[in-house]
C-alpha cells in the first residue's frame, strides 16, 4: 500500500469566506442575546432561552474565530 497524503479537512482557500460568514451569524445572534438581556426584567427573563441563545452564538463565534485564525496564518 502506498502512503496516502493527508491534507486539511476543509480546503485552505475556503477559510476566509467561512470565517466572515460564521462570525457574521455569530455576531447577529450575540446582538439578539444582549437585546434580550437589556429589554427583559429580572422577573420575566427565561434562563433556558438565554442559555440556548448563548450556546448557539458561541458555536458560531467559536468556529468563526478558528477559521479567522487559520485564514490569517496562525495555524493552531
Amino acid at each position, binding site marked *: *500500500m502506498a*502512503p*496516502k*497524503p*493527508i*491534507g*486539511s*479537512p476543509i480546503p*485552505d482557500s475556503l477559510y476566509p469566506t467561512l470565517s466572515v460568514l460564521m462570525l457574521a451569524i455569530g455576531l447577529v445572534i450575540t446582538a439578539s*442575546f*444582549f437585546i434580550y*438581556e437589556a429589554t427583559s*426584567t*429580572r*422577573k*420575566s*427573563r427565561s*434562563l433556558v432561552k*438565554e*442559555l440556548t*441563545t*448563548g*450556546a448557539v*452564538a*458561541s*458555536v458560531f*463565534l*467559536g*468556529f468563526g*474565530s*478558528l477559521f479567522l*485564525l*487559520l485564514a490569517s*496564518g*496562525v*495555524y*493552531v
Partner: protein
Amino acid sequence: MRFDLFLFTLAILSSPVLSDLVLPKVERRIDLTSQVVRITTSLKVENTGSDLVSEVLLTFPDRQANNLAYSTATLYEGKGKAKASAGSLPVELVHPKDMPPSLTVYSVSLPKALGKGEGLMLDVLAVFTHALQPFPEKITQADIQLVLFQESAHYLSPYAVKAQSLTVKLPDARIESYTRLENTKVHGSEIKYGPYENLPPFSYSPVVIHFESNQPFAVAKELVREIEISHWGNVQVTEHYNLVHDGAQSKGEFSRLDYQARPYVRGASAFRRLVAKLPPRAHSVYYRDEIGNISTSSLWGDSKKMEMEIEPRYPMFGGWKTAFTIGYGLPLRDFLFELNGERFLNISFGSPVNELVIDALFVKVVLPEGSREISVSVPFPVKQRQETKFSHLDVVGRPVVVLEKNNVVPEHNEHFQVYYKFSSLSMLMEPLMLISGFFFLFVACIAYMHADLSISKSSASYLSKLQWEEVQATVQQVHNIISRCLAMHDKLEASLRDLSRTGDIQACKATRKSVDSLLKELSKELKPLIAFLQSSFQAAQIFPKVEELIAKERDLQERLMAKHSTVVDCYEKKLGGREIENRIASHHQKISILRQEIDDLMEFIDEI
C-alpha cells in the same frame, strides 16, 4: 610539524595487519572548492588470501577523523564506464586491537564475503568540516584569505596498494605553495600526485597545500529547526541561526567606505549573502532577527523549488557573528502521509542554506496535541529526546521530538520520518476550546444580569427599585393575559366565519364553550395582579391605564359574546343573511372601536 609524531607512530608498527586484501587501484579526488572538504576514494579491492573476507577497513588519522562529518560507501558492479551503483553499504566505527593508537578505523561490511581471487569496486565519500586551517590566522580587511590543507599523498590503508593517484581540486585562485613530491603536476587549479606503485600498508607521505579561498566560511554554531505540524493544513518551519564566519579572523578596523567602494578588493574574505533552497510551494516566508524584519532578502521560485537569498545586516568578516531567524509555511499534503493507520511526516533533516556547516543542529518536530505512539526513523545516528510545548489553544501541551546532531554538512539533507498515531476527532479540541471560551462569556453575562449586586439591601431607593421591577413584571403579565384574551376573541370571530360558510352550529357552540371557560380562567388569573397593582404605591401612575384597559377588554368581551349569541340564535331560527346583518350591525361598529382603543392602550403599557 605534528606529522613527525605521526610518522614515528607508524614507524614503531611491528607487523602489518589484515594483509589478505590488496588494493590493485586507488583513485582519490579531494574537493577543496568550498569550506567543506570532500574526499572521494575509488577503491578496487581484491582478496589474495584463502580466507573469506566480509569487511573492508578504512583508516583515518585521528586528527582528520575528529572532523569527519559524513561518510558513505557505494558498491559498484561492472567494469569501466558501464559500472553501476549497487547500493550504499553501512560504514561503522570499529576498534580493532592491533591497530596503531593514533588511527581511527571504520569498517565497511560487504553484502557478500569475498573468496580467494575475487574483487569488487567501492566508492567512499568522506566529508570533513573545519579541515581547512586559515594561515595567517588574522588578516585585515584588504587581505585575501589563505588556508592550509594537510593530507597524505599516499593512501593511508591497512592494505598494500598497487597503484594509486591523488587529485586535489582547488578554487580558481592563487596557489601560494604546495609540497612537491615526485610525480607532482599542477594543471590549472588542480594538483595531481602520482601515480605511485606498489606501496606497503600504512604508507604515509604528508603534503601541505597553501592556497587562497574566499568562499563563504559560514558556520552555524547552533541551529534550531522547529517543524510544527497543524492538521488544519500547514507545516510551519522556523529556523534560528547563530552564524559565524569561521575563516581567518579579521584584525584592524573595518571601513565601510572602502568596503562599499571596492567590495571585491577591500573585503574579499567577507561574504554578504547566503542562498537557501526552500521546498516548492513554500509560503509566508520571513527573515528577521531580534530587532525586527531584515529587508535585504529576495525570493523567487518555480514549481520545483523556491530560492531565498538573504543578506545579513552587515558583511560577514572573519570571526564576526550574527543571529537571525527564517520561517516558512509548507502545504501539509506534501509532507504528511498516512500508511496502515499511522501518520508520518517526511521532511528533510538539514538546513536549506547552501554549503553551510552546522556545529550543533537541533531538529524539533512539534506534533499536534493528542499524538500517540511516536517513533522516529533517521538515516544516520542522532541523539533523541522528547519534550512538551505549549502553543495556541493547548490544554496538555504538544509532544515534541528533539533530534540532536553535531557536525552537520549539506550531505545530511536527507529525508527523515516521524511516525505517530492521531485521531481526527482530536482536531475538534481547538474549536471546542474557543466555543467554551465564548460560552463562558455568555454565562458570565447571564450571571451578572441575574445577580443582585447592591450593597445596602434596606435603602429606600433600592426597595423602591425592587417594587418598581415587581410592578413592571406584573404589568407585563397583565399585558400577556390581555393579549391571550384578544387571541380568544379572534378565535370566536373565526368560528363565526366558519359558521357562515359551513352552517355547522354544533362546532360553533363547542368553540364558544371552550373559549368561555378559558376566558373565565384568564380573568381569575388577572384578579391577584390587579389587586397587587391597586395596593402598590409605585403603580399609582400606571394603574388607571391598566384599569381602563381591563374595563375596555371586558366591554369588548361582552359585546362579542352578545354578537356571537345573536348570530347563533339567528342560524338556529334559520333567518336570512340580511336579517342577521341588521341585527349585529350595531355590535359590529362598537367592537371595532373598542378593539382599536385596546390596541392603543396595549402599546402604551408595553412601552413602560
